[in-house]
């Protein structure tokens, strides 16, 4: 008897991790973007008519974002500030989180229209959707009969 599965394995975090890892290790996918090692790290996903750029930037103020587009370059600028510690603060036991100003430019492939990008911020994730140029969008091609004979069939 087969083992019961309570969940579709391809909807889980594991499936996403495997897919991201496969992409991380495949150099052919990284064409068109650059800047590995910069802050914040980004993941870029493909949709039919858009590209979606996702960055993990927790603890930012929505108002602190300054995102601009010039040509095919998107620039994200913001500042991450430390929370208020309170009046009777006695000191840190651990300090692992980083703060400060950052700026990152992302070079988009020609097929995207950087100036039409839309950005959203929630749960510490910055999501930027960039539409493809009309000409670069996939379009459906209908097959037509080549001759009278094929049409009659």
């Amino acid at each position, binding site marked *: 008897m087969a083992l019961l599965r309570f969940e579709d394995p391809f909807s889980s975090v594991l499936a996403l991790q495997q897919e991201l890892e496969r992409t991380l290790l495949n150099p052919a996918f990284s064409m068109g973007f650059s800047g590995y090692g910069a802050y914040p790290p*980004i993941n870029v996903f493909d949709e039919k008519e858009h590209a979606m750029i996702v960055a*993990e930037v927790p603890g930012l103020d929505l108002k602190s974002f300054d995102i601009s587009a010039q040509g095919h370059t998107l620039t994200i600028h913001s500042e991450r500030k430390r929370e208020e510690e309170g009046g*009777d*603060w006695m000191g840190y036991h*651990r300090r692992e989180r980083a703060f400060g*100003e950052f700026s990152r430019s992302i070079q988009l492939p020609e097929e995207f229209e950087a100036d039409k990008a839309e950005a959203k*911020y929630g*749960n510490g994730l910055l999501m930027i959707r960039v539409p493809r140029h009309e000409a670069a969008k996939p379009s459906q091609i209908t097959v037509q009969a080549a001759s009278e004979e094929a049409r009659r069939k």
Partner: protein
Amino acid sequence: MTPQELVKKEKQQVQTKGQEKTRPGVYYMPEVDIGEAGDSLKLWADMPGVSDKDLSVTLENNILTIEGMVSTSMYEGLSPRYTEYNVGNYFRQFTLNETIDAGRIKASLRNGVLELDLPKVKKARPRKIEVRPAQGK
């Protein structure tokens, strides 16, 4: 201590040491700041991608456990084209030396940052002892 600069850091995977989760998948250690105020411990943890319904904070036998599950629904129908970081759930535990009043713990999650206020039990708080002049002088 100098503040840390914003640079890309590789996420630290949780070492399971024989204790495995029932659900497969990688767990990462959220980065934390822990400090002490007069009458409570404060903790901040960076857990981007976690919403409040997928977060659990427990305190049992002085062990504080923080666990956050990342939702992958936003990635449905998308295929990765270029990636720099991996996505995973979060898990971290701390042994607390102080005695914490579990009933008064406050937790809030804002923009992917968990903030915990762990009030010390009254007797564990530092108490200033007033020195009074001796009687009869």
